[in-house]
């Protein structure tokens, strides 16, 4: 029996995930200490308990069942995404909540799982090859469909998570470097052109250099190159046509320092919170930035500030290490499982975690624009925590079933 558990259960992963969840609960407690903390704290504790149960349940579902359920679940979640657009509750400007007798649910969270499953199931078919245009199109569409609904909510942060996950899965599933470049170069050009001419030129030059190195069909290469230039130039053009206040909003998004009281406020306060924590922190419940509510949304999107301020560099570093271990474990699992479906599910989950983490910590530390996404396992929020737990459950499932085809 002991051996069976050893063989099938990744205890270190469970331990790390539980630890991160507990740190999250403590941080939520601290972040909402003055505003009737108990409500947030108890709710999050409840979600965590429910999440843990779900995680164990998901671990025990046979791979075959998951494969068979993937399309129906995907369809159901697309349905929910449609419903939420019609009857959803607007929170913070986004119509992303469904109310169920006092319980709020974000379909866009759960859809992360179902989209990964559907994507993995589709890509696991032997005939699906990522050099065929049709297969590429369907693969991309599986992700773009929920993204479309999510953009309509609108919830850009979540949409970016899906797109990031798609890129990782494509690459993992064997998309050629050329295909990756086709997706990445125009996006890079668009972003770079907002930063100015020089970054744009650098991106264009890099694209050209990589195209030469890849030795692909010249015609396609030319198309990719033209697309890159065209996207960059038109972004620049559209930006110039925008009203000044919208230009300013975009610039503030890219560089929060230009508007310290508006959009830049969060980041400045967040940096102050993290920086003032120092090496050892100010002590639990003693962070002035946290306790005096200087950081908006500090129990959700800016949760990372809380332990960083109260436990200092040591706390912030510990969380970073734990999260990175989860990512590494995910890559490891996805590379040892025998089933292609399992592998892609695992990498999809890793990608989802990674993009969340990259954007969230990058935002809190002021090296990324402010995009509202939660920090996996730590941020307050039921749908997100449950989704994360389900994803961890899937990782554990893939590990347990790693020898199955």
């Amino acid at each position, binding site marked *: 029996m002991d051996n069976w558990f050893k063989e099938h259960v990744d205890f270190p992963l469970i331990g790390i995930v539980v630890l991160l969840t507990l740190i999250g609960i403590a941080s939520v407690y601290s972040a909402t200490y003055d505003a009737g903390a108990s409500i947030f704290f108890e709710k999050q504790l409840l979600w965590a308990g429910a999440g843990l149960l779900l995680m164990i349940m998901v671990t025990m579902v046979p791979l075959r069942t998951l494969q068979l359920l993937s399309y129906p679940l995907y369809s159901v979640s697309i349905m929910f995404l449609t419903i939420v657009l019609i009857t959803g509750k607007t929170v913070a400007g986004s119509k992303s909540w469904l109310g169920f007798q006092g319980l709020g649910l974000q379909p866009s969270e759960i859809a992360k799982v179902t989209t990964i499953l559907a994507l993995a199931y589709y890509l696991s078919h032997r005939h699906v090859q990522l050099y065929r245009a049709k297969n590429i199109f369907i693969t991309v569409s599986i992700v773009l469909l929920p993204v479309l609904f999510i953009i309509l909510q609108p919830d850009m942060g979540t949409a970016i998570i899906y797109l990031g996950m798609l890129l*990782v899965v494509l*690459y*993992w599933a*064997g998309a050629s470097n050329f295909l990756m470049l086709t997706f990445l170069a125009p996006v890079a050009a668009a972003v770079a052109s907002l930063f100015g001419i020089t970054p744009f030129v650098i991106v264009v030059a890099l694209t050209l250099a990589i195209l030469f190195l890849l030795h692909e069909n010249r015609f396609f290469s030319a198309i990719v190159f033209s697309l890159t230039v065209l996207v960059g130039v038109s972004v620049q053009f559209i930006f110039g046509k925008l009203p000044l206040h919208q230009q300013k909003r975009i610039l503030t998004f890219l560089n929060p320092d230009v508007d310290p009281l508006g959009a830049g406020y969060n980041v400045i*306060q967040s*940096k*102050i*919170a*993290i*920086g*003032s*924590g*120092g*090496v050892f922190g100010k002590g639990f419940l003693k962070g*002035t*930035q946290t306790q*005096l*509510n*200087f950081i908006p949304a500090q129990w959700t999107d800016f949760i990372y500030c809380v332990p*960083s301020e109260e436990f*200092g*560099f040591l706390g*912030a*570093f510990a969380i*970073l*290490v734990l999260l*990175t271990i989860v*990512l*590494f474990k995910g*890559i490891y699992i*996805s*590379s040892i*499982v*025998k*089933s*292609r479906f399992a*592998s892609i599910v695992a*990498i999809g989950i*890793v990608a989802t975690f*990674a993009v969340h*983490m*990259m954007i969230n*910590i*990058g935002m809190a*530390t*002021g*090296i990324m624009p402010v995009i509202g996404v939660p920090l996996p396992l730590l941020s307050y929020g039921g749908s997100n925590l449950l989704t994360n737990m389900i994803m961890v459950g899937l990782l554990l499932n893939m590990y347990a079933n790693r020898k199955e*085809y």
Partner: protein
Amino acid sequence: MEEHYQPTSRKIFFYTFFSALFLVFLFRLAQLQILYQDEYGKKSEENSIRALTRDPIRGLVFDRHGILLVDNRPSYTVTMTPAEFDTSRIAHLSEVLHLDVEFINDRLNKGVAYNRLAPVKIKRDIDFRTLSMIEENRDKFPGVHYQVELKRYYPTKARASHLFGYTKEVSDVQVSTMPDEYRPGDIIGASGLEARYERALRGVKGFEFITVNARGQLVSPYNDGRNDISAKEGDDLSLALDGSLQAFAESLLANRRGAIVALDPNDGGVLALVSKPDFDLTAFGSITPTEVWNALNYDSTKPLFNRATLTRYPPGSTFKMVLAAAALQDGVISPQWGVNCTGAFQFGSRVFKDLHVHGPTNLIESIQRSCNVFYYQLMLKTGFDRWTRYGREFGFGSPTNIDIFEENSGLLPSEEYFNRVYGEGKWTQGYLISLAIGQGELGVSPVQMACYAMVLANKGHFHTPHVVQRIRSNQTGELQQIPFDTRQLNISNFVWDLIREGLYRCVNAPGGTAPLAKVEGVNVAGKTGTAQNPHGKDHAWFIGFAPFEQPKIAICVLVENAGFGGVAAAPIAGLCIEQYLYRELIRNKPIAPIAVKANEHGARTN
């Protein structure tokens, strides 16, 4: 086949990518939390800690006997916290407080610019009705509170409005020139001692540190108040002033215009300094209502004007001793030198009259009886330049440096001055005749005249007149003696003796012009003066000192448009001397109404 499809290179790519991501964040955390910890730590403190100022208690003022003259009393001040105030209530608030909406807005904006959280004072010293109105309407005026502040209170009868001076709110200009010391709404001394000793009196502001949240609302005292700095009470002033003399002297000039300055001839301490009409300082106790200001400013009797230090009138015959001293000291005349006064003096085509026919008159008699002819001739003998020089020696034409800000230097004419004003050669010796008897362009202030009386009393020790003797620190209890300058006049004792004999006789001998200055049991010496005034009745002067043998008080009395010095000013001086030396009045009636007979007491000297 399937289990091997993951290319190793892509696995390595992801491991590398996530490792890089980890390192980027690690680097960033180290940068924020280790490298820039101090900077962000400071910012977080600035974020959450606010300093509120606590006003110190203004120092008190005591007289020479330790009697409290200037005290503080609580009053209610309405304040408004910009962060909490509901601006839609401005109109209503302005009604309740009788303030302009613009005024409240102005205060509000200045407060926001300084610190949204710090209460701004909008009206001081409100009455009880207004207070209860604010209290009853608390919910209607969020952010509007009242606080107890101290305002000046004067417990004795001594008003000394010009001497004590008043306080007012600092002006914008003062705030901008002394930004570290004052902020809008602070009180600052504006005149008299309050202004001159502002630095000592004001004390040191305290600070209370509080923790605020992101909305700027008070959360708790910072560090349980351990870092608070309590306000330091201002220093107390110990004056040379005799409070009861001051009050008494004020009562003597009630309903008159004039000034009294009394000095201690032993050190120049100001025993009394009165300027009438005066004003009620309690009306200035905190914020002066505009109506009060306007009334005072437009009053034709100029109550705000400090006659004791700013007046510039000719001194009349009181100035004769300057010429006498000059002539004697420089050997122009011998003590026996005399004239035969025929009641008039012809100079060129002009005739200068005397009030009486004094007959043969020597120097002592000339002072005693105030003979003009004597001085007409003496002036021509002595010369303009010498007269000016000795006038300067006695302190005329320059400020006395009394420790009150406002002071007029007066005017001591000189050849150079006449040349400048009239042109060289365009003025004649005839101009000097007027100066000889203290008329004409000559201008002096009562405080200068009191100093003059002081040097006559103490035979030439010119002490800088000063109101404050000591400053007592309320922190250390330390007494700081305020140093003052003493200058020795270059005049020999035999000159002093002669002149003082004349002053003694002026009060005490038959034919003297100042018998009304007499005080029972004390030998008073002095000199009367009557200053011509083109605008009305003559101004009455008297300078004197007592006791003659060992002077303890030197005094100058000026009563505007009151006529003869010997009639209008001398009795007042006598009463003051009596009050000061006996510390009470020993005679029955304060001022006996005296029928004026010019040929008996008249001292009209021009």
